[in-house]
């Protein structure tokens, strides 16, 4: 417990208060004060005080449990992990009710109903009243929310383009700026954003309905059940309604929602059981929904990689030949190219190509990615070929020369074919590495497999399944390559050893 340092005169008084308060057991509850009003925010009049409807609900819960509430600040995206780790007893600041969460944690009954709503530019009012009207349009949302899941589904059924953000501010700014045509988020965030950003309009008809819940550690079901009791009681006696009205979030949907929660006490419990059992299938559902996006991203990855590798091999062969056969100045220049390009990070090269050169020439992202990767790998390829060329026995070169073959014929007909066999293993290495380095191009806004995976992971809140899936896809891309190389190698080994 932190003792706030004040001038000495206050210490005694505080000490007393602290001791007195220490008698009451504490309910630690976690939330993100940056979430702001109306969830949890610092009181503008007294910054050491918190306010918001979640604060009051937490207070009611604590009172109902006979405890004193104490707030623990945690970043919104960490609430689930933190409560599981035991940083606090219950997490609740706009925590959405999702199947994933219900499976991972012990969840209270829902205590508030909200709606995913579409916000559009004021001048588009009425034009996009439903997701179906947004075919081919860009719709933004916050990653990891129910709205995002909804949008992903609509991407398939209605052809909208889903753009995910990490915060709830930029979507509305981008909407205003014309980079989006709509934002799908819950009505509370939408209302708040309408106050911040001028010129927006929120369609009144909800796209989907969801609820806020409290979350507790998996093994903490006993406390959960007592919290549920308290919540139900406060719904019945009108305390929650009073709180919601105070924070201006009470709407016509809540009475029906309260009623359904109170009546369906049993039904809810059953649902939970079902959820626990049906977890696997639900997970599968989420995963399946992501597969098309991952496959699209894989396609970008493979097209980019193949094109870049082709460029790299071509340029690499030229550099290697130049370094083995060229005149001294040519050799020096090529050596410098190799050292510089190989010696500096491709990430940096991509940045320089895409952003640094943008004042001179504005390359499209894909072209910049292709050039960046291709020219970078050319430096590596050239080194491999050079090494391989120099590994071909000199006697054979002399034999070829005495037969009258020109140097370029010796290279093409005698040295090259045998060097290629030696170069094959490291070349395969490089192609596979390139496949994966292509993930770097996400920094210049190309969305490929890894980027798509990280979006996926952020949204389902776990790296396990997306990680395995992504790895599997990369493997599927790289294995045929290894196979082919292996077979070629086999054939040559059989032929020339």
């Amino acid at each position, binding site marked *: 417990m932190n003792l706030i340092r004040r001038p000495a005169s206050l210490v005694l008084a505080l000490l007393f208060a602290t001791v007195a308060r220490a008698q009451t057991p504490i309910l630690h509850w976690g939330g993100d004060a940056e979430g702001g009003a109306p969830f949890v925010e610092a009181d503008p009049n007294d910054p050491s005080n918190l306010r918001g409807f979640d604060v009051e609900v937490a207070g009611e819960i604590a009172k109902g449990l006979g405890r004193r509430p104490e707030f623990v600040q945690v970043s919104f995206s960490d609430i689930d992990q933190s409560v599981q780790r035991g940083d606090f007893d219950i997490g609740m600041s706009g925590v959405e009710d999702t199947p994933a969460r219900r499976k991972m944690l012990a969840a209270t009954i829902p205590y508030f109903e909200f709606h995913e709503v579409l916000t559009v530019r004021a001048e588009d009012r009425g034009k996009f009243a439903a997701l179906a009207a947004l075919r081919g349009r860009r719709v933004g949302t916050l990653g990891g929310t129910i709205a995002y899941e909804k949008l992903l589904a609509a991407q398939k059924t209605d052809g909208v383009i889903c753009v995910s953000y990490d915060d709830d501010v930029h979507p509305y700014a981008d909407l205003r700026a014309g980079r989006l045509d709509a934002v799908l988020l819950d009505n509370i965030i939408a209302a708040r954003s309408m106050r911040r950003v001028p010129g927006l309009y929120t369609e009144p008809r909800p796209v989907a309905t969801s609820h806020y819940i409290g979350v507790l550690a998996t093994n903490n079901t006993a406390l959960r059940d007592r919290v549920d009791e308290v919540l139900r009681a406060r719904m019945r006696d009108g305390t929650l309604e009073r709180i919601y009205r105070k924070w201006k979030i009470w709407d016509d949907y809540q009475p029906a929602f309260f009623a359904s929660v109170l009546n369906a006490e049993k039904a809810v419990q059953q649902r939970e059981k079902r959820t626990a059992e049906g977890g696997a299938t639900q997970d599968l559902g989420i995963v399946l929904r992501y597969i098309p996006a991952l496959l699209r991203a894989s396609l970008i990855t493979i097209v980019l990689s193949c094109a870049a590798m082709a460029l790299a091999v071509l340029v690499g062969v030229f550099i290697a030949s130049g370094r083995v056969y060229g005149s001294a100045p040519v050799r020096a220049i090529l050596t410098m190219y190799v050292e510089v390009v190989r010696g500096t990070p491709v990430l940096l090269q991509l940045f320089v190509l895409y952003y640094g050169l943008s004042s001179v020439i504005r390359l499209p992202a894909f072209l910049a990615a292709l050039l960046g990767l291709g020219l970078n790998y050319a430096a590596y390829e050239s080194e491999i070929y050079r090494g391989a060329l120099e590994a071909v026995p000199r006697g054979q070169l*002399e*034999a*070829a*020369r*005495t037969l*009258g*073959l020109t140097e370029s014929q010796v290279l093409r007909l*005698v040295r090259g*074919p045998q060097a290629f066999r030696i170069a094959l293993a490291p070349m395969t290495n490089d192609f596979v590495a390139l496949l994966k380095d292509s993930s770097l191009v996400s920094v210049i806004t190309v969305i490929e497999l890894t980027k798509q995976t990280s979006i996926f992971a952020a949204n389902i809140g776990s790296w396990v399944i997306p990680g395995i899936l992504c790895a599997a896809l990369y493997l599927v891309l790289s294995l045929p390559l290894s196979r082919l190389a292996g077979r070629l190698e086999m054939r*040559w080994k059989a032929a020339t050893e």
Partner: protein
Amino acid sequence: MSGVLSIANLRLRRGEREILRGVNADVRAGELVALMGLSGGGKTTVLRCVAALETFEDGVIDVGGVVLRPGPAPSRNTIRELRTRVGMVFQLHYLFEHLSAMGNVTLAPMQVAHVPRADAERRATELLEALGVAHRRNALPRELSGGEAQRVAIARAMAMEPPLLLMDEPTASLDPARRGELGETLLQLTTTGRTLVVTTHDDDFARDFATRVIILAEGEVVEEGNPREVLTNPQHAATKRLLQSARSEK
């Protein structure tokens, strides 16, 4: 004078060692010269100098008008000229590992002389037959026996029909019968005006087929002349030492 090859005062060092100490030799068209001498005496080095595979410190080599001088590698043009006049068979064969026997023999005719494939293969088959390895034409070098590889290497060099052919120990891995056949083939070539310089350790072969023998000892030519005379009745100590043991118990 119809000098095909003239070597004057050829000197060559490798690190500390003076390997050639002023080699002088003249070869006329149609000769079959046997270059003999103790192992390590510099025979291979002389041939490599003539084929411009080594640079040397002193002396002049004149291959039918193409002149090689000491110092750095000769110009590209000189080399191109030279390659049309001199062919070479290597002691360790140096077959192209990735090509079959046939591929080895036809590569240069097709790529350098631009002979159509069919013609090149017909000619290659003739050569391989003459050398008794035609039945192995589709084998890769690693599938050939030592003597077979040697004969393929000989065929490869002969396919380009160079006016001057340098052969480094072509008889080393050949059985007596094959050695005889090779000798006959080479003699045949000289009748068409071609010239051969052959290093060998086989005094019988030199006696039977060479028109002239040159004895190299410690980087110098110590004796030369008609093979029967030189080898039967050696004058120089080095030649005597060279033949000593082989004749000791005959």
